[in-house]
């Protein structure tokens, strides 16, 4: 790192907004994924102007930059693969405006997802995207990764809830796309930037839609002896046109770990459960719940439990949303995969995932968004053993490849990042990459912003910027 860049940053940000000591930087070398990459400097801007100045200085010094929210991402999207300056948005965490009449909020990127819902729920409103990490993850990160969550089954992912962005391009240029009014004239630039994984621009302000809470909610827990029965239930619910707000599956093994941790009353001796939430008008909730109950029983559900009150409902969801944390107690490390398959293929996919675990001699848990076919197999391993680490990585790749063979996709909500960039050729041709690269280069021509993401190294933008000191995760 050039010392004159550090000095220039210190001059306008102050040294309390900059980390440069190795033992501070080490905290920013990882996120929720198994990848690692250490930045050379971490800076904490407080305003959009700060961001513009940081980006300009970095560009002048030809140093890569990467934006970061809370670092909860699961694909290495917020890691400094090219070293350089990491811009952490933790201090840009203000809700700038809530427009109740027009159902919009304007927020800074560092606002925590759940904090926005908390700020507007008194008016019967909420922010619909609800990743499991919503207590910690930021809306800026949600925008970069186009984050999902359990309830995106009914309400769509982040991109369906963003109408405007303020952007800082990699040359320091400030731009606005969209606003409070939906679908502006011209190309849908919000649609392009949301989910571009921080490779086109940094987001410094976001205008989001607020949603109205439904009149009635019913949460059901279907308990099954086998995983097959649970997945067949999901297939039939989809085919019967039941439209739950959420439809989550947890396998029996995962459930035991979760129950030990959250004591939500989950059974310890079943093959799998489905956590299904029906929302809407009271009449519709009653009718759809009856169909859910019927379909679950048709597929041999041992029991279909209905949450009696809000406390019971919250407990069930606590179990679901803390499941990954619960599994952290069972092995030194775990690798949460993210892949999508057509919902009609769920039973086959789950059977194959279990087989792959057995073939590779690894425990694989399954906690996922069954309703939209978004799988999250979770591979447990000990990273201190290189052999085990490599086996886990091979198992993960087997699973993802199988999902693609079924007509699925590499990632449903975590993003490609550096985790899956090398797998992108499974889905995309040279011509596809060529167009994506031209889009990338149209905004980020020197690959100074978040290098080494999305594109496979060698095909991508800025591969030359991947510096040798950047280390992959794995045994030390």
């Amino acid at each position, binding site marked *: 790192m050039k010392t004159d860049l550090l000095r220039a940053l210190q001059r306008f940000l102050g040294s309390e907004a900059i980390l440069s000591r190795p033992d501070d930087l080490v905290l920013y070398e990882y996120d929720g994924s198994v990848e690692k990459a250490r930045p050379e400097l971490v800076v904490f801007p407080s305003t959009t102007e700060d961001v513009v100045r940081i980006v300009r200085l970095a560009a002048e010094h030809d140093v890569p930059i990467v934006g970061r929210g809370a670092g909860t991402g699961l694909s290495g999207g917020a890691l400094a693969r090219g070293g350089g300056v990491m811009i952490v948005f933790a201090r840009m965490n203000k809700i700038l405006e809530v427009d109740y009449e027009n159902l919009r909020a304007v927020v800074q990127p560092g606002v925590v997802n759940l904090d926005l819902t908390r700020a507007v729920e008194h008016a019967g409103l909420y922010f619909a995207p609800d990743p499991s990490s919503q207590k910690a993850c930021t809306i800026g990160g949600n925008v970069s990764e186009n984050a999902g969550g359990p309830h995106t089954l009914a309400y*769509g992912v982040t991109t369906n809830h963003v109408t405007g962005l303020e952007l800082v391009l990699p040359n320091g240029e400030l731009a*606005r796309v969209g606003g409070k009014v939906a679908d502006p004239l*011209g190309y849908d630039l919000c649609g392009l930037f949301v989910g571009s994984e921080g490779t086109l621009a940094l987001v410094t302000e976001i205008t989001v839609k607020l949603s109205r809470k439904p009149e009635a909610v019913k949460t059901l827990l279907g308990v099954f002896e086998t995983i097959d029965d649970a997945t067949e239930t999901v297939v039939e619910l*989809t085919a019967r*046109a039941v439209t739950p707000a959420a439809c989550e599956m947890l396998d029996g093994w995962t459930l035991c770990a979760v129950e030990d941790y959250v004591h939500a009353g989950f059974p310890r001796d079943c093959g799998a459960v489905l956590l299904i939430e029906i929302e809407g008008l009271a009449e519709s909730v009653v009718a759809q719940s009856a169909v859910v109950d019927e379909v679950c029983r048709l597929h041999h559900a041992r029991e279909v439990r209905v949450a009696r009150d809000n406390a019971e409902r919250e407990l069930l969801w606590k179990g679901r949303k803390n499941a990954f944390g619960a599994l952290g107690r069972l092995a030194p490390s775990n690798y949460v995969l993210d892949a999508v398959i057509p919902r009609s293929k769920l039973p086959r996919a789950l059977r194959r995932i279990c087989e792959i675990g057995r073939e590779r001699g690894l425990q694989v848990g399954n906690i996922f968004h069954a309703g939209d*076919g978004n799988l999250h197999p979770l591979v447990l391993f000990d990273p201190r053993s290189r052999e085990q680490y490599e086996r886990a990585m091979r198992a993960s790749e087997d699973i993802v490849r199988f999902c693609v063979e079924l007509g699925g996709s590499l990632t449903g909500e975590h993003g490609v990042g550096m985790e899956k960039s090398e797998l*992108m050729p499974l889905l995309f041709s040279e011509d596809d990459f060529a*167009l994506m690269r031209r889009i990338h280069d149209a905004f980020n021509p020197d690959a100074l912003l978040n290098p080494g993401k999305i594109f496979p190294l060698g095909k991508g933008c800025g591969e030359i910027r991947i510096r040798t000191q950047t280390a992959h995760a794995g045994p030390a």
Partner: protein
Amino acid sequence: MTISNERALSRLEAALGRTIAFSEPSDCAKYAVDGFAPATVVRPRSVDEAAEAVRFAGSEKLAMIACGARTKPGIGMPPAHYDIALDICELRSVAHYDPGDLTLSVDAGMTLSAIEHLLAEKNQFLPLAVPFSARATIGGTIASGIDSTLRQGYGTARDFLIGAEFVNGTGALTKSGGRVVKNVTGYDLHKLLIGSLGTLAVITRLNFRTFPRPTLRRGFLAAFDDEQGALSLRQRITGSPLTPALLEILSPDASRILFGPESKSGALQVGSGSWHVCVGYEGSAELCERYGRDLSRIAQESAARDRLLIGEQRFALLAERLREALPLLMQASPLPIVFRFQGLLAETAALIRALRSFAASSWTPSAMLVRSHGVLHLALLPGVPEESVLKQAAYFWKSVESLRGKLDFHASIQFCPAEWKGELNVWGAPPPGLALMRRVKSAFDPQNIFAPGRFVGGI
């Protein structure tokens, strides 16, 4: 058409064969856009042929406009150049339909009605209730970005288009998204195609999530003396737990044209001189009864002059008239001009007031459709095709500009006589982000061969 272009086009005919590429003036005239006819029409039978035509256009620097059934070629500015029409209607196969997964992948030339029939067999549908529905192709519907009357309940194509394949300006077949309902792999390029008027790529295939067909579809109409009453009912509905599929407001003139005694709308005659709120809702009989009950009560509280519950059959008629509202309004005048606005819900009343006053000052009859999510269509409907109408339209359009800074909205002219476009500039003031849009255009179409000049800011 230069001589070198003519030679190039005969080479194109030679390369693709005369059954696919033809240059008879009478054929070309059918593909005119705003009075400009192409020199050649290409009707590819396969994606490879479409890509070959694009590569040819690129190598010869010829301008190309892709089209479907040509039901609404008048959207946008006249093309700066136009050599080749690329008619994608022969590309109309179903690539993939998995009813159990509620996903569909079809070629861009498939018509909406063919898709409707296909999905109906499995009791599903695609919530794109757009005008010219009998003939329109799915490719044209997406490329034009035309409004659907089901937006209130189902959102826009942006919410259920899950992937696309397209030939970009280099002639390469490329894709974005996939066939799964949740997917964040790679850039979301297919979203850029929606409403891009063919300026980025030739769309060849589109993937959607489909929706279960509701058991029943019913409706509700309420009549009001003024727009305030109608808007107040709308506000009460959107503020209630009800989530109707359709929610539109018609001005008295729009009501008369769509549903008046001369409208051939049969059983749906509505009273004259009123603003009408139209609501469509769906689901089980029990759910529909709840809607009917709640809507009647809310309408009464909003002091509606009349209320009417509409059963399935009559609702189908209502929904069809609303879906076809734009062409129906345009048929009501020899020189119709249709403006499209999009603003904030809380500012709709102010926008309506301003627009009505501008329309009144321009001495031109007008009709207004207040659609969901802040979309508003205003049609100026002069009774006689006089020269002065252009001046009146220009006055109206200029007046709209005076609202900038006072209200948050964007506006365009969706349909008007081609020869007026030079004076009216249908896209209005350049939108924010135009410089970024140009970068997107260059990435997709580096040689600027696709529909040059038709889009926002001269793109």
